[in-house]
């Protein structure tokens, strides 16, 4: 009740809650496609690669959103360029490029600002969300949901069966970079809630949980968004009550929900799976 009272009383807490819920939804939706395409590492990479962009934005005095999108996309293109034009494998290329961007970002930030800012960017500080940040998160949410709604067919096909997508003449690379843009936007929106280091958890943990529960993409996306939002609410609650870092609390909650699904999911959970295989082996023995 303490939390509810505080929520009614403090404007900053309302903003924090609304922003975290939006972040849970955005990351849940984008993350569904990220895990189905086997791009979890890419998610981690892009989230780190926004750091120099944030620093440059400070320098130029513009909203950090623009700089972050710029360096995030530049890194995505760089990763693709290196793996396509050399014998370096994709995951190695990801490793090289994102650590480079991250290192550059750390240097830029320490040159520019005090180390407390760096700490907030890395680990999030949801209680310091400003009104403009809340609006940016809301706009990002609308763009992400809109893009995924309109390109649903194309995203489904390029994720599920890239060969057929090519045979249909779909612009595979363009769709890849659109998804990378959405991924960068989701990351930027999450900066203050969970911070750069933990964004990847918001992208893949709720999506992976949903993947264990359903066999249908549209349901998976919806579930993933709901799980993301719930993790945010519960995480923020614990963060407020016990004075914990909000990002870490949210991620721990998301992981707990994942573990529940991992053991108990009726379709793909460990428990039912072992029941089914036991029942199977008993029925085979009976037939023998």
């Amino acid at each position: 009740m303490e939390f509810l009272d505080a929520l009614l009383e403090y404007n900053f807490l309302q903003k924090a809650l609304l922003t975290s819920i939006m972040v849970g939804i955005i990351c849940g939706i984008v993350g569904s496609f990220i895990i189905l395409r086997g791009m979890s590492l890419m998610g981690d990479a892009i989230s780190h690669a926004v750091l120099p962009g944030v620093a440059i934005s400070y320098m130029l005095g513009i909203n950090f959103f623009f700089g972050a999108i710029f360096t995030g996309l530049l890194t995505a293109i760089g990763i693709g360029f290196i793996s396509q034009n050399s014998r370096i494998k994709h995951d190695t290329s990801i490793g090289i490029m994102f650590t480079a961007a991250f290192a550059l970002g750390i240097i830029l930030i320490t040159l520019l600002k005090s180390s407390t800012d760096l700490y907030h960017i890395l680990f999030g500080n949801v209680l310091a969300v400003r009104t403009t940040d809340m609006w940016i998160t809301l706009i990002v949410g609308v763009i992400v949901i809109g893009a995924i709604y309109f390109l649903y067919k194309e995203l489904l096909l390029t994720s599920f069966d890239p060969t057929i997508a090519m045979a249909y003449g779909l612009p595979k690379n363009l769709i890849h970079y659109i998804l990378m843009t959405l991924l960068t936007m989701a990351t930027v929106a999450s900066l203050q809630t969970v911070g750069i280091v933990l964004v990847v958890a918001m992208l893949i943990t709720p999506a992976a949980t949903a993947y264990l529960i359903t066999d249908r993409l549209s349901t998976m996306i919806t579930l993933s968004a709901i799980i993301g939002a719930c993790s945010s609410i519960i995480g923020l609650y614990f963060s407020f009550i016990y004075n914990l870092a909000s990002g870490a609390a949210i991620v721990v909650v998301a992981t707990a929900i994942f573990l529940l699904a991992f053991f108990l999911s009726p379709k793909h959970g460990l428990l039912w799976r072992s029941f089914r295989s036991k029942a199977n082996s008993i029925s085979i023995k009976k037939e023998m």
Partner: protein
Amino acid sequence: MTTSIEVSDLFVSYFGKPAVSGVRFSIRSGELVGIIGPNGAGKSTVLKAILHLIPFDKGEVKIFGKKVKHMRKKMAYVPQRSEIDWDFPIHVLDTVLIGTYPELGLFRRPGKKEKDWAMECLKQVGMEKFYKHQIGELSGGQQQRVFIARALAQRAEIFLLDEPFVGIDMTSEEMIIQLLKRLRDEGKTIVVVHHDLSKANDYFDELILLNKELIHMGSTETVLQPSIMLKAYERELTFLKEIGVEA
């Protein structure tokens, strides 16, 4: 009968090694054609080149006299089953609905009309009862029938199938070949990459025999002659002789 596929002077290489050299042939609509040849003969490569799925060094492909990029809607492709992620969260009906995407174009979603049509296509391969199953729950033959239904859903003029009978049961194989023959009788063009020579005689009207180059193309009887087959399978035969098999 009109020429539906025309391949001229096709050269494809992988990492500098030639895979297909100077292949040319044309196929008319209303024909059921098999592409045969030993392993590594470039059979799948030719199919992928027809669809422009791989870059080629030289050559041209014409579909009903037009460039491939204008004719993609008319071409249905059934890739090898090994290229699919069977854990993907997708149902049988949604898989078949993919066949309606080219006609729908960008942004538009499949509606009731498309769903009814997809169910109709599933009925044609005897898979309508499984429409709600996740695709990984099916047997190999059932999976292949679903992908044939997806190709049907596209209302294409040309069907290109890559090794459709590998790893599937006899019932499914029989059902698929009957369906392909029916499509041929309706005037469609069917091209099948195939490696089981024993069935080639019953299945196809015409054969394209490949071994990196075009060895021979013609009616099934003219291609399945010892002198001609020997040209493509020479290396295999030399090996058999070496280990003491009498030809």
